[in-house]
Each structure stands twice: as structure tokens, then as C-alpha cells.
């Protein structure tokens, strides 16, 4: 039974990665099929007019060649984007700084916790071997590790206590000394340790006074805890929430940072006018797709590097960053980063085509960052509540905010896999729609210079 449960849990997370892949593959197939049919219908009447020899017979290979050229050009554009981005000093130094920050965020809590987790108990006078074992065994019960330090005298022990070299001093197995009195409500590790030690040592001496031999008294006073089983799994723990917070922050940073790159890239091409040279050889959709894919791959590689370093370091230093986190959470977050990027990159590209100079970027960028900020803040607030609000539940199906809200719902166990898939499907449809709209805005705006282009202007002029 247990094995079965373990197996389904192991399969579970991959489901979330498979769903979008399957949907995307099926969608691509349908698209290619429709495209081929359309080509065939268009191809035959115009074939005699073409100068290409054997146009009719070579129809199939021509479609193939056309498809090759589509992928080839997009690939060329993407490769240029990657090369130019990775080459800049800002990117390299920026990545290094983010890596250092992540490394620090992983390692520092462990170091600090390590210092806290290690409780040293000074021992003055005799302590029998069974008692030594018993005192050390108290550590795990309060979530810490205990080591004993033999002190030469009470005075030496008090010096160590004052200097913080030991947390507690045990005098003649019958008295505990601490540096400062405890607040009655305190739950710090030292307080807990002292309380447990005081109780169990008192019980021990009581039992010994009652004539029970020390060996048995120790066994009675420091029993092994009973095993605890539960009917239901533990509620989402803090580590899962922490991981979700990290993944939300990562999604937010990636969407805003790389979105900004796309806008800047589009504006660079527009303001330097190089776009006219490019569009003489490329279709706007190819140029945009290449840019989006190129920058997206850089974004993913950087994110993967960050996550890899975080996980690797976490494992190396024994951080509990990922303990208790379902891999499904991590995978779902990854899927949504990709989907969110695919959605916003088109919007950013269209927005970039409206600006004429880098100075106009801010006014163009600001309205775009609002939905991202809104989704991010609502979702991260939702994490603080025991149950996600209705707002978060609704936002999980709205494409602009779904990249933040859906992973939260899923991570907190408030979404089933079909709800997840529904949201992914809505998102994919939205991406196609946004891509079409954005290409049309881009095409109309990209060659207009002399001031910021307004959307109304674009479509009004076309109608005239």
C-alpha cells in the first residue's frame, strides 16, 4: 500500500509538466496540418506563374523548404539575441551578483541555525555514564544537538557561560545554571532544553531517592518517545510555503527583467532603425519569435543556473530549503514561468514598438508591470493565509495573473490536476491570441518614428 502511494506520488509531479507539452504538441500538429492544406490550395493556381522549374511536382519539397527557412531565420535571430545578451558585461556581472545573493540566502540561515542548533552543556562534578547518554539524548527531543563540556570548576563553568561558550551548566547532576533568567513564554531552543532537562533530571533524582537503581532510574526518567502515526498527512508546512515564496519571487524577477530586455531590444531596433533592414529580409513574426525565444532561453538558462546552484548548495550544506516540498510545486512553478514568459513577451514586444526612444520606455512599461505586480502581490499575500482567498482562486484562471496564482493554489493543495490543466489550456489560447494582436500592433507601429505611437492612432490610420 505504502509502495503504491509512493509510486503515484512519484508519477504525480511529471503530470504537470506533461500536460502543457502534450497540449503544445497537439496544437502544433493541427497548425501544421491546416497550414499545409492552405498552402496546397493556394499553391496550385499560382504555380504556373512562378519561375521555379517543376513547381507543381516539387510542391511538397517547397513547403518543406519554406518551413526550413522559417525555423532557420527564427533560429538565426534567436542565436544573435543569445550571443549579444550573454556577451554584455552587465549580464555577466548581474548573474554573478544574483548567484552570490542566492548562495548567501541558502548558506547563511544554515550557518546561523548551525550555531543555534548546537547546544553545549557544561558539566561540573560527576555525571554517570547513563546520565550522560540521557542528557545528550534530550537534544533531538527539542530539535537540537547537545554536546557535553567537562568543566574543571564551577567558577570556570560560569566564565564559559558568561562568554557564551556553553548554554547551560549542569552542577553535580542536580542543579542547572543559565546566564539569564527566562521569559516564561519563551520557546527558544535553550529554554526548551533547560525545561526538559530540569524535569527529567528531577524525575531521575526522585526515582533514585525512592531506591530505584540509577541504571533503571535513567531508563524511567529518559524514556524513548512513542512512535506517532497520523491518519492524514501533515498540513502544508512552512518550508513548502517558503519554497513557493522563492518561486514566486523568481517568477516575478524573470518576467519583469526579461520582459524589460525584450522591450529594450525592440526599442533598440526601432530607434537605431536597423529594423527596416531586418524586415526587408524577415517577416515581423519571425523577428519577434526569434527575439522572444532567444531572450527566453537566456532567461531559462539563468533561472536554471540559479535554481541549480541553490539546490546544489542546499544539498551540500544540508539546508532544509527543499525538505518537505513536493517536486510538483517546483515543476508547476517552472511550467508557469515558461507560460508567463510566452504570454508577456509578446505584450512587451508590442509595447516596445510603440516607443521611439529609450526615454519613453518607462511610460510604456509601467501599465504592463501592473498586472504582474498585482498577481505577484495577491498571490504572495494569499500564501500567508491558511486558505487562499476567492480572489486568488479566480486569478488562477486569468492569463495575466495565472503564472503567480496557479502555482500557489497547487502548492497549497487547492487545485487538482485537471484544474491546473484547464488553466494551462486557457493560457495557451491566450498566448496565441496575444501573439497575433501583438504582431499586428508591432507591424503597424515599428516603422513609425517621431514620437510615441498611440494605439488609437494605429488602427484609425489603417482604416482611412
Amino acid at each position, binding site marked *: 500500500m505504502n509502495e503504491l502511494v509512493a509510486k503515484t506520488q512519484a508519477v504525480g509531479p511529471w503530470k504537470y509538466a506533461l500536460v502543457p507539452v502534450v497540449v503544445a504538441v497537439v496544437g502544433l500538429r493541427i497548425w501544421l496540418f491546416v497550414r499545409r492544406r492552405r498552402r496546397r490550395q493556394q499553391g496550385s493556381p499560382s504555380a504556373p*506563374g*512562378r*519561375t521555379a522549374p517543376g513547381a507543381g511536382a516539387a510542391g511538397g519539397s517547397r513547403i518543406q523548404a519554406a518551413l526550413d*527557412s522559417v525555423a532557420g*531565420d527564427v533560429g*538565426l*535571430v534567436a542565436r*544573435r539575441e543569445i*550571443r*549579444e545578451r550573454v556577451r554584455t558585461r552587465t549580464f555577466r556581472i548581474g548573474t554573478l551578483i544574483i548567484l552570490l545573493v542566492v548562495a548567501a540566502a541558502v548558506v547563511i540561515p544554515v550557518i546561523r541555525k548551525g550555531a543555534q542548533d548546537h547546544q553545549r552543556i557544561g558539566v561540573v562534578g560527576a555525571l554517570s555514564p547513563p546520565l550522560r547518554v540521557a542528557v545528550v539524548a534530550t537534544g533531538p527531543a527539542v530539535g537540537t544537538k547537545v554536546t557535553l563540556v567537562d568543566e574543571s570548576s564551577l567558577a570556570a563553568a560560569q566564565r564559559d557561560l558568561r562568554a557564551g561558550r556553553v548554554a547551560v551548566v549542569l552542577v553535580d547532576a542536580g542543579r542547572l545554571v543559565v546566564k539569564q533568567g527566562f521569559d516564561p513564554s519563551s520557546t527558544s531552543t535553550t529554554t526548551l532544553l533547560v525545561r526538559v532537562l530540569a524535569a527529567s533530571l528531577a524525575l531521575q533524582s526522585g526515582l533514585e531517592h525512592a531506591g530505584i537503581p540509577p541504571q533503571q532510574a535513567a531508563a524511567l526518567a529518559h524514556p524513548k518517545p512513542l512512535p506517532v502515526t497520523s491518519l492524514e498527512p501533515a498540513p502544508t508546512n512552512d518550508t513548502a510555503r517558503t519554497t513557493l515564496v522563492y518561486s514566486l519571487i523568481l517568477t516575478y524577477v524573470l518576467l519583469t527583467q526579461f520582459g524589460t530586455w525584450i522591450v529594450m531590444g525592440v526599442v*533598440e*531596433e526601432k530607434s*537605431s*532603425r*536597423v*529594423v*527596416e*533592414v*531586418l*524586415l*526587408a*529580409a*524577415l*517577416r515581423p513574426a519571425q523577428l519577434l519569435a526569434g527575439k522572444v525565444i532567444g531572450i527566453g532561453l537566456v532567461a531559462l538558462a539563468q533561472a536554471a543556473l540559479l535554481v541549480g546552484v541553490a539546490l546544489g548548495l542546499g544539498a551540500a550544506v544540508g539546508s532544509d530549503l527543499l525538505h518537505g516540498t513536493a517536486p510538483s510545486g517546483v515543476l508547476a512553478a517552472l511550467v508557469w514561468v515558461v507560460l508567463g514568459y510566452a504570454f508577456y513577451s509578446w505584450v512587451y514586444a508590442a509595447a516596445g514598438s510603440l516607443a521611439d526612444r529609450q526615454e519613453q520606455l518607462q511610460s510604456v512599461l509601467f501599465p504592463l508591470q501592473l498586472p504582474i505586480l498585482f498577481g505577484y502581490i495577491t498571490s504572495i499575500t494569499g500564501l500567508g493565509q491558511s486558505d487562499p482567498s476567492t480572489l486568488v482562486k479566480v486569478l488562477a484562471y486569468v492569463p495575466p495573473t495565472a503564472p503567480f496564482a496557479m502555482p500557489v493554489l497547487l502548492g497549497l493543495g487547492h487545485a487538482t490536476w485537471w484544474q491546473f490543466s484547464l488553466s494551462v489550456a486557457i493560457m495557451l489560447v491566450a498566448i496565441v491570441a496575444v501573439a497575433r494582436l501583438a504582431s499586428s500592433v508591432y507591424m503597424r507601429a515599428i*516603422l513609425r*518614428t517621431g514620437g510615441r505611437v498611440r494605439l488609437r492612432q494605429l488602427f484609425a*490610420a*489603417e482604416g*482611412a
Partner: protein
Amino acid sequence: MLEFDGLTRHYGEVVALDHLSFTVPPGQVFGFLGPNGAGKTTAMRAVFGLVGLEAGTVRWKGAPVTATERRRFGYMPEERGLYPGMIVREQIEYLARLHGLHPADAAAATRQWLERMGVGGRAESKVEALSMGNQQRVQLAAALVHEPELLILDEPMSGLDPAGVDAIGSVLMEQAAAGRGVLFSSHQLDLVEHLCQAVAIIDHGRLVASGSVEELTTGGQPRLVVKVEGDWSGDWAAGVPGVRVSRVEGGAVRLVLDEGTDPQAVLAAAMHAGAVMQFGFERRRLSEVFREAVGA
């Protein structure tokens, strides 16, 4: 052969192209001339599908131009454009690849064209580090690197020194001699007259005149150029009957003679004004062809 057939386009109230039709034969340097705002850039952009047309088609070798044909064209837009932060060589290689060249061919052609344009030594510099003149040369290399069947250059001479104008002129002639189509625009009609074998002159989106330069400049009324020593204004010519002053350049007066006007009478009037330094017939200039055609 490139055919513009009935191109029409408005920008709001402004007419950019008004049923514009003309044909650019291959193997000649073809000038596309007209004042600023005549619609030259819009027509050239239409070849690359960069503007939506309300009516009309652009045909290459008899078939409407599609993306496949455009990849074999070379284009230098009026608004020059290169990635400022990109290495010159990589930029040209990239554009060559976008036009369908294989990596090795792209590298070889890039090297060759940068050398030819005299910027081979700057191949590894960033574009923004180059002077404007050199950027212009790189831009021309970008238009030529893939050995285009048709070369379309929008105001290629603007902003160039005389040496640069000559360099571009020789490249254009060489391309035309190789049997390619060469179409370039200019608003300085007289400056490019000697470069073109044929021209189309447009104004307000309409064709004003087209044909070989030879044909256009030998037709019309005779021009007489007269220079009188010490005279810079050419005022003496104002009172001569049967002539119209076309232009005064450095004291040399270009006169358009009405039919039946006796050149000897003009010479007499000039001699009356002072010592005659120059007296002779000249061809019509393209700017005069234009002005006479639009009635200005």
C-alpha cells in the same frame, strides 16, 4: 525587371503614392528622383512589403514580389540602421545569413565587401565607434553582401563627401554592368544626373517624367549659358526679349530660349553688359525637366 504598377497610398489626408507606375529594367543605374516628400521612400518600402498599399502591385520578373524574392534583394533604407553595439563583421555576417548565405560564404563575402568599401580595418570594431561616413560604407556593404539581384538604395549619397559619392557611384555602375537591377533615390536631381542611365521623376506620389537621361535631357527648348565678366547677378538678361532666366550660378546665366529667339541677339545684349567670358548651348538638366513638367 521591377515593375511598379498603380501603387496608391495615403497617410491620412496626405497623398504618398497616387497610382504610381514605372518599370526599372536590369543592367542600368536607375535614378528615382523627386523633391522631399514626393513618395520615394514609401514606394521603395512597398517593394519590401513594409507599407500597406491601398492599391497596386510591385512585380519582379512578372510575378508579385513575395518574401522569397525579397531575400534576394538588397536594401539600404533612408534611415540608416545597424545595431550600434554589435561588431561590424558579425553584423554583416548576420545580415548575409538572413539573406540565405551559408556561414562560410557569409564570412567570405563580408570580408570582401568590407575591404571593397574601405572599412576592412574596422571589421572588429563596434558600429557605434565608427564615423558617420564609415557607418554609411558599412551600411552599403550590408545591402550588397549577399550579391542581390536587385539593389534598392534610398538616398545613398546623402551625408557623403565627394569621394564617398564617387565610391558609391562606381559600385552602382559595376552592379548594373553585372546585369543586376539598381534603383536609387535622390532629391538632388542635378547631383546624380551623371550617374543615372535612366530615371523616373515623381512629385506628390505621381510620375512626372521617366525615360533614359539621354532622351529627357536632349528634348525641350534650347538652353544657353552666358557669363559676363564681373557680373554676378545676371540682371542684364532680364530685359532681353524671348528668353527666360532658368538659373544663375556663379555669374553664369542659364537661359531658356523661346522658339524663334535669335541667340545672336542674346549675345549682343550680353556684350553690351560687359566682356563675354562664356557663351554656349547646353543640355537640359533633370531639375529643369522636373520644373518644366510640374509647371513650376
